[in-house]
């Protein structure tokens, strides 16, 4: 299968998956809005009401983190399940395997974008003024897209041979959620812990989103470039791995 066939297939399958999801459930994509709000409720009770922490802008700060975290979480999990979810297909036709994690990530991206628009509208309603730095948000998103794509392809390439990785990722994501600064401001953390936490690229990206959307500060381009470079290296590694193992996936007993 040639590259242009693969690209056509990726786009059509992404569209088909979203359409199928909308047809399958009554609320469909609305769940992507409900989930961050439910999380917000839980953490609001815990932090603001029980622990009297969280500061005045807890709600927008939290939502900013939760919304972009959901994208990362679903993209990565979708990528790790992508090849095994299509195991029947692998026995019937030859398809280059990289398309499965890519479809999963594009699907979660297509669901994330409208949610981010709703989040932006919420900021206006909440009383946060439109700022010039909002223009930087798409750049942060693009960086995050490359990061998710690279990681999803990497775990997608490995999980069929190492099924335990799937469980490790599902649990590891919970751990990462707690240390990525979704419900706290990473800059309030004392050094050197803050620097260690920032080794996690999602912690850095969430902070850059808050810079652009809430604080009116332009994102740190050097920081974004580093994350991009890491993503390119991991992505190239993942593609090489998928190509190398291409014909082995058909033999895996899922």
């Amino acid at each position, binding site marked *: 299968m040639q590259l242009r066939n693969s690209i056509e297939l990726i786009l059509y*399958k992404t569209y088909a998956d979203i359409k199928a999801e909308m047809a399958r459930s009554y609320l469909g994509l609305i769940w992507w809005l409900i989930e961050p709000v439910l999380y917000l409720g839980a953490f609001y009770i815990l932090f603001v009401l029980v622990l009297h922490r969280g500061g005045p802008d807890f709600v927008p700060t939290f939502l900013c983190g939760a919304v972009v975290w959901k994208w990362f979480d679903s993209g990565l999990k979708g990528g790790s399940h992508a090849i095994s979810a299509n195991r029947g297909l692998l026995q019937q036709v030859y398809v280059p395997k990289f398309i499965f994690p890519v479809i999963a990530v594009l699907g979660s991206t297509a669901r994330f974008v409208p949610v981010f628009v709703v989040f932006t509208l919420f900021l206006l309603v909440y009383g946060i003024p439109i700022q010039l730095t909002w223009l930087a948000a798409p750049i942060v998103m693009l960086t995050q897209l490359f990061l998710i794509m690279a990681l999803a392809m990497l775990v997608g390439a490995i999980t069929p041979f190492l099924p335990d990785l799937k469980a490790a990722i599902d649990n590891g994501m919970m751990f990462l959620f707690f240390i990525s600064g979704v419900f706290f401001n990473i800059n309030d953390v004392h050094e050197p812990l803050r620097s260690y936490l920032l080794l996690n690229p999602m912690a850095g990206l969430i902070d850059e989103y808050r810079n652009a959307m809430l604080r009116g500060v332009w994102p740190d381009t050097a920081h974004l470039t580093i994350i991009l470079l890491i993503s390119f290296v991991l992505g190239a590694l993942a593609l090489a791995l998928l190509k190398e193992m291409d014909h082995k996936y*058909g033999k895996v*007993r899922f």
Partner: protein
Amino acid sequence: MSAHEILISLQNVSLSYTVRAGMFKWSKYMPLSDISFDLHRGETVGIIGRNGAGKSTLLRLIAGILEPDRGQIINHGARVSLLSLGVGFVPHLSGKQNAMLSGMLLGLRRQEIARRMEAIIEFSGLGHFINQPLHTYSSGMRARLGFSVAIQVDPDVLLIDEVLGVGDEEFRTKSTSEMKRLIKSDKTVVLVSHSLPTVKELCDRAVWIEEGSVKNTGDIESVLNLYTGRSENS
């Protein structure tokens, strides 16, 4: 381009699976070992053998879905396709969308399928049902759609695993005759079938597989005689 031009050549092909037998124990299972034969342009080769002999696995190897662990498959530039019905079908999409998706998975370009969509709908006989979601289809209707899409793929080498006719009586007759027309054309076909009369009618040559190895190969009459003779004796 001679009639005896070799399109695909299998040379001592073996395939093995590593099966995990315990925490840190693995055992090997070899569904195919040391298979050799050539596929010539325009011929129809029947693959016969008992259930579990490795016939379907062999087709997947020729199709390039699996790769041999030993030996090699040399493809002299032929486009190979395993006839599969309903590849990638999604219940919540319409028949038309599923035809599009399935056709793309079988290797067609989006435009090619769009161009042939009328022919697909026409052949399937599904009429206005083509715009209904697939989960409203009966299994026969699914098979009709799957078949109509699959025959649009036009490879140099067509691999067929027991799928000749599908659906109800009417469509079965129609699809079987379409299949036979394809096989009898100058296309190269590898056919796996348990129906010996079908193999005899359609194939020029047969490869008899038993327990993962080639038991016998040659012109259709002689291989079938040996095969049936042996079945009667055993």
